[in-house]
């Protein structure tokens, strides 16, 4: 238990360090690209631009901007006002968009894990059969097809040919199903292949042969003795899977008109909305770091050989 605590504390330290490094790097990068938040087709006179800069503390020397903003984040959790979405603070933008992205990501991941693990187990147990071939063929396709293509096909199929779901939008369960499926599909495919490979490896082990020899039912052997070991690679893949679900949602948010935070990411960058871009980068950093830490912990729990350090 103590090693878990010291691990958590060390991870937290690393996270703060990473976030700080990301902050510094993004800060420098953002200000060194050409253009600024106030560029527009109508040119703004210098005196007015200065007023605007003052409003967002962009008139201070860079070092002071750097510390002021950092202090604001650390002491008040305040990511500032969005420069381009004038009526909103960055915290408000995150508060509105994050639950949507999170819902989508959760549903996509749960769908991916359920489908992927089931398919993997089935094809490992019935390896070499036509069913195995079909499942794994589908999985290869699932990995190869990018999710925006999948989304277009899904819309064609389930919105126009078989009108089951609405074309886009957010607010009902029916509206979230298609995007969650499209977002989860590539992950599911990957998990299916990982599970199958893991299962096959463990199925060949001696303890499994012993279990079968003892006369245990097939079901028990698979679920109790094979699956936990076979899931290790899947668990370690969940970190990258979360990343892929979060970043993959950028495209799907546009196709399905979802009010998540993904699209802000791109806009903030292209429109030089420094504060919003920073808020997005930091949010994603923290999110990915936390997910990876969780994955590491669960890894140690499932596999006694893994030590947290």
């Amino acid at each position: 238990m103590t090693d878990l605590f010291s691990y958590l504390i060390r991870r937290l330290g690393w996270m703060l360090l990473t976030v700080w490094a990301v902050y510094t790097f993004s800060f420098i990068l953002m200000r060194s690209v050409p253009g600024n938040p106030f560029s527009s087709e109508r040119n703004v006179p210098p005196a007015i631009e200065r007023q605007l800069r003052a409003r967002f503390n962009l008139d201070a020397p860079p070092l002071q901007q750097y510390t002021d903003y950092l202090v604001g984040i650390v002491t008040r959790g305040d990511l500032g006002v969005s420069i381009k979405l004038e009526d909103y603070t960055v915290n408000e933008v995150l508060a509105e968009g994050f639950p949507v992205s999170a819902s989508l990501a959760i549903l996509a991941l749960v769908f991916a894990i359920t489908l992927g693990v089931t398919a993997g187990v089935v094809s490992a147990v019935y390896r070499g059969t036509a069913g195995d071939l079909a499942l794994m063929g589908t999985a290869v396709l699932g990995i190869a097809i990018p999710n925006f293509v999948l989304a277009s096909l899904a819309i064609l199929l389930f919105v126009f040919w078989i009108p089951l779901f609405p074309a886009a939008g957010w607010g009902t369960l029916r509206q979230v199903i298609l995007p969650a499926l499209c977002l989860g599909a590539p992950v599911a495919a990957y998990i299916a292949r990982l599970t199958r490979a893991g299962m096959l490896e463990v199925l060949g082990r001696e303890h499994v042969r012993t279990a079968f020899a003892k006369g245990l039912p097939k079901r028990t052997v698979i679920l109790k003795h094979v699956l936990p070991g076979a899931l290790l690679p899947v668990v370690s893949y969940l970190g990258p899977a979360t990343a892929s679900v979060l970043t993959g949602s950028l495209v799907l948010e546009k196709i399905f008109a979802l009010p998540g935070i993904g699209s802000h990411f791109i806009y903030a960058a292209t429109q030089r909305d420094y504060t919003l871009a920073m808020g997005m980068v930091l949010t994603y950093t923290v999110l990915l770091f936390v997910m990876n830490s969780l994955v590491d912990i669960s890894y140690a729990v499932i596999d006694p050989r893994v030590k947290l350090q």
Partner: protein
Amino acid sequence: MPPELRRIFVISALLVMGIAVLWATQFDSMPPADFSIQNGTDPKTLDPHRATGQPESRILFGIFSGLLQMLPDGEPDPVTGLQPMSPQPAVAESWEVSDDKKTYTFHLRPDAVWSDGVPITSADFMWSWTRMLHPATACEYNFQLFSVPYAQEFNSGLVEIGDRCEVELFDRPNPDGTTEADTGQASFQAFPRGTMLYGTLKEIRKPPEPTFDDEAGKQLDEKEREQAILNWQETWVYVLDILNQAEPGQIDWDGPTTTQSFTVNLDSPQAAPETQRMHAVLVAFDQLGGIEAPDPHTFVVQLKDPLPYFPSLTAYYPLFPVPRHCIEEHGMPMWTKAENIVSNGAYQVKLRRLRDRVRLEKNPNWFDADQTSIETIDCLSTEGQNTALNMYVTGQIDWVTDPPVALMETLKERDDFYSAPMLSVYFYRLNTTRKPLDDPRVRRALALAIDRQQIVDQVTKAGQVPAFTLVPPGIAGYESPSGFQPDIAKAKQLLVEAGYPGGRGLPKVSVLYNTSEAHRAIAEVIQQQLQNNLNVKVELQNMEWGTFLDKISQLDYDIARSAWIGDYADPNTFLDMWVTDGAQNSTGWSNPDYDRLLQEAAAESDPGKRMQLLADAEAIWIEEMPVIPLYFYVSVNMVKPRIEGFFPSPQDLHPLHLLRIKSPASPTP
């Protein structure tokens, strides 16, 4: 780790997953609105003084009303189907113009109220227009009021000795009841304002101006020099004869005064101990008779020039009134939140959800509320063209404002597809400060060698009109000069005259465009045409928006794509961009005759003569060709047949309160 713990872990992981799924499937669902618009993207702001784009304007025209409003007037054009629009009474129930066309008197409806019931008076317009022009508001459309005396000086902060000025002291109130003077922290809330003093400017004491002749100065780039100058200006000390008594609205400028001094930066070497800290000394715009409110329902505007299009300006959202009581209570930008905003249009904001929608509902307090038919409207932030079309086909959207270009040919045939000429032009800016485009002959040669018909037929496809002039057709009373016709032989001849026979020796030029499929396709066609027709090699260069704008404003390009949508229905909106050093010029082009013609046109009160002067100016522009016009846009909309009252209009304006739903709402899936 003991096995029990492991089991607990697995169970709790499953539990957490279950809870997460439960949470993720909870939605606070909202019944669909009666009518849904594809608004393209989120409005950046709902403050009429800060907004610029189309998504903002669609909502602002719905939720605010100006003195006048643009409404259909007369029969639609039989050929294009365009419905002419004209400014008609809104908050002002009538208006008069003086004989010299310089004084407008608006009579406000006595029953006009804000959506919270507070009456709208002429003082609201005084305050709103002052806020719109105030430098700290940084309204991009501020120039629309520059024909009012002192407006431009007020907006740009220019003051001269002898001017009648206002001084805003450094004591703007904070929301918590303190003032700037108490905390020492500058507030960017320019409204409510700090203590206002009025007086005549006597002297400006300036410390020595920074020079950039020494070694350190030479190393500074343009931005840093600009900053140094601005810093220097903050140390100026203004000395004014301040009126002892000044009641805003009835100031006696000849009353008794006391001499006082003010500065922005108290560390200034010129500051005396009694010098007071202030925000700015500005010309007292609202006290000098440019705009006046003789009584609560009369609003008088003086103009420097007889602008025939002034009534249409008052029907455009930057000149709409904004609710003073709401802005002063909540501050900027909080007053635009759905729960705070007070407006005075046919609709009011019910809900704003980022990347999703702005829900509007009928404003029962609007003066013409009987005319409003649809109860709720959703302005959806749907960006994807295909997504919007899918939603239209399946009944989730009733009005598509941006149909996919790839499907244009098919969509054009449909009955619910509306396309009509629009007051806007797509063009290529030429950098006239660089070789070879500094030579008008080369510029003309390029312009003559482009086949615009091919571009509109094969690339843009929605029925755009090839452009050979600057001003789009369709402005009443204005006839553009004949322009030119594509003529490859003549283009070749011009190149020979310029010293580049057969394109030989012509330095390579590049076409800069902001990253977008549509712009790339057009640039590629032009690249091909110039290569084939003139043997001129052109490079294509794409950049994302921010960098692209930077390059243009710094004149760091050869040819750059651009476009302009008319701000009002008058040739002036297209022509005054190109005056010498105009803020939107960005080509380096300058022609004294052109500048003079525009000035004369502005001062001309006879409409016919004025239009002739403008046409003469356009002829110079065409001759010199600092910009290659390519095509005039068309507005493209798709509206469900169940909607009545939709018609194409020259500025793509569609008053929401005129829309009607014919039959009971069609079922939405």
